[in-house]
């Protein structure tokens, strides 16, 4: 197959910074001839670039239906571009802020002409770190833009605190563990980070989120505090939920291993019945799982412990409640803190599931499994990628999918890499155990 022209699809909610980024792509000296298909600004013909004002309607979708008319327009415009002798190094498509990127991505999987000449290099999603909270829980488009992304730019980082950014990044990684996340201000990121992503890179997906293949935890945050003699008190000012669980565990020191050991203990404690603790109820580090009852206004829970190091694991991020631990001399800052991938989803179950298995797949079983999977769950699966070791084949087999569309290709030699099966699913209502179990049956 001749070399295909890479396509970058740029998404992001209104005001996330797409225009800023597009302007950089159009004006920076990157040495590439880029055809830009955009819908919110621009005219035909800018210097060495080609910018086509494609009018946003052509990207409107029909609930991801692969038969929607909008594809016809996109295919026709791209088809016309690809006929020209002045071939482009790259095509950049900007979707509207309100768009689900699904149908645009599908275009490159479903149309033979497009598949032959073009390949999706990356879906790049800009997220407004300051204002995304207003949409992330109730906007399907925002969730889908995050779910489809290969690269996510957390933009406008200068407008939020590091703690808020940590919380946002953890939530986003819970939804899409595959994407590489960059923190940016004014969309300042090296252009190679968005234009040279290289499409399929599952190895990268595993690297960028070390929690991706780990078990999910019943808590989102853990940290170690040095509590002085005289005790301390947890103080909260916000009540986003009716209650929040917390456990407090004595640890030997403030090291990472101590936190990791305590984490396992905390997982067990979270499976126990909890004790409701109204504000002003005294908490102890005695193996109890506390359920803090949240009310309006400032709430306090005294902590009665001997002086020493304690690990606390909270169901939600402390920032969500404005939760701090205060001692006699003021706030006690945790000496070590970590975010955990939660097993309770905030986002109507948009999540990612990674599967890794040694061994070889039986090809007919694998085909049947994938066919059944996309037929039964294709609507909910936004994207999927995988590398398979097929019995009898010396080469890697790689696949990508968007909703119900699958593309399987020869992935070349394994080289020094271990023959191993790796898969990633991103979508709604994904059942990690069921996916794992059903995939295991494909092994030869």
């Amino acid at each position, binding site marked *: 197959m001749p070399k295909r022209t890479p396509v970058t699809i740029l998404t992001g909610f209104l005001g996330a910074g797409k225009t800023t980024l597009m302007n950089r792509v159009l004006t920076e000296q990157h040495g590439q001839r880029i055809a830009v298909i955009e819908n919110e600004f621009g005219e035909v013909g800018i210097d060495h670039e080609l910018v086509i004002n494609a009018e946003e309607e052509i990207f409107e979708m029909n609930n991801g239906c692969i038969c929607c008319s909008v594809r016809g327009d996109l295919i*026709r415009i791209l088809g016309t571009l690809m006929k020209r002798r002045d071939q482009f190094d790259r095509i950049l498509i900007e979707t509207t802020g309100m768009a689900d990127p699904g149908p645009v991505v599908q275009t490159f999987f479903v149309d033979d002409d497009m598949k032959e000449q073009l390949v999706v290099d990356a879906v790049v999603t800009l997220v407004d770190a300051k204002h995304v909270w207003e949409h992330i829980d109730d906007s399907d488009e925002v969730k889908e833009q995050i779910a489809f992304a290969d690269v996510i730019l957390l933009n406008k980082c200068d407008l939020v605190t590091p703690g808020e950014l940590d919380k946002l990044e953890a939530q986003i990684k819970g939804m899409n563990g595959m994407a590489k996340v960059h923190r940016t201000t004014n969309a300042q990121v090296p252009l190679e980070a968005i234009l040279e992503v290289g499409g399929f890179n599952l190895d990268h997906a595993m690297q960028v989120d070390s929690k991706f293949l780990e078990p999910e935890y019943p808590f989102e945050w853990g940290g170690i505090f040095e509590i002085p003699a005289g005790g301390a008190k947890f103080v909260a000012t916000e009540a986003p939920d009716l209650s929040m669980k917390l456990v407090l565990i004595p640890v030997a020191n403030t090291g990472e291993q101590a936190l990791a050991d305590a984490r396992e203990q905390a997982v067990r404690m979270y499976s126990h019945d909890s004790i409701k603790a109204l504000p002003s109820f005294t908490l102890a580090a005695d193996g109890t799982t506390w359920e803090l009852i949240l009310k309006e206004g400032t709430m306090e829970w005294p902590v009665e412990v001997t002086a020493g190091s304690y690990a606390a694991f909270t169901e939600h991020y402390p920032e969500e409640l404005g939760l701090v631990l205060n001692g006699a001399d003021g706030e006690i800052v945790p000496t070590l803190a970590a975010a955990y991938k939660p097993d309770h989803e905030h986002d109507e179950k948009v999540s990612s599931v990674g599967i890794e298995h040694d061994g070889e797949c039986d090809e007919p079983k694998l085909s049947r499994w994938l066919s059944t999977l996309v037929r039964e769950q294709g609507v909910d699966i936004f994207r999927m990628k995988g590398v398979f070791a097929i019995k009898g084949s010396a080469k890697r087999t790689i696949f990508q999918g968007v909703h119900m569309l699958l593309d399987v290709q020869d992935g070349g030699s394994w080289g020094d890499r271990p023959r191993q099966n790796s898969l990633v699913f991103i979508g709604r209502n994904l059942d990690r155990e069921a996916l794992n179990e059903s995939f295991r049956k494909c092994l030869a």
Partner: protein
Amino acid sequence: MPESKKPEDRVKLEMMSAAKLLPQTSATRLSDHCLDLRWSPDSTLLAAMPCLGQIELFSPAGERLAQLPEHPNGNGAIAWHPSGEWLLTYGQDAEVRIYEASFQGQPKVLTLEKAWAERAEWSPNGEHFAVALGKCVAVFTADGLEEIYRIPPQKSTICDISWNPSQPDEFASVCDGGVRLWKLGKAKPMSHFDWGGASLLSTWSPDGRWVVTGDQVPSVHLYDVKRKDPLHIQGYETKVKALAWEEAGAWLATGGGRLVTIWPCSSRKGPNGATPIQLSGHLGDAIALDFSPGGKGLVSGGRDGLVLLWMPQSTEAPALISHQEYEITRLRWSPNGQSLAVGTKNGDVFIHTLTS
């Protein structure tokens, strides 16, 4: 001669004896992919339009007669006035240029608002021309270049425009999920034929009874204009990029895969319930079709570079006209039926001339 094992060679060998009907009489090259070829109504001039670069005028012998300036950012459409007196060109610079057929002097120029610009067609009586302007179609007078009609913006860009050959004030627009029929002066469409999917091109039957679309999904739609009755024909291998009516409207040829499928359309029900003729010979998708004037011969061009001549009513075996290196993008018989123009992906333009 030893039997070749390559399928394309086999096709060549089997067809070669019948391929001398239409010898190639000229070969020229445009500056880019050949987007369209249009013969003047008197068959004396061939206009050839590449994606980028000058639009060229050739004689039937292949002699280069004139070169017209390109439309910056891409050429879009060329169309001869039915009288043959003018040639219209249109492109992504939003200019309509109307040249006198002598190609002496400057064209009349109409500058429109910038929008996706790929279609322009004269009305059958030559009084008007319609251009696709992004999501709109605007209609202008031939004499004064005065805008007299504009359809309201549609939900997506206009894919195609085709005039009703029997009613010169009616045209079809293809966009957002189907076809709409418009009558000049009427604010609302005469008919909506919305099927929800994407159609790529449209053509009217010569008697104006049917509007046909080739679709992005492997299908063809035929709309009975008077009865407002749609027929949906499925079963093609690929999207359908080529349609051609036989001159009398008795046959409709369709691409959509390696087979060329011909539907009989002369009965009251059109192709409904009829068995099509399916012609096998291409090794790649058939993407260009044209019936010869008189309707006896059908030419097809494919992604395989083959140009085949079929006499579907007499035999199913095709004659090989040529086998080009690049895919065939356009085939046009001259109106007098004496010449066939062939355009290719790399900009070659070949002219074949009938020997008998």
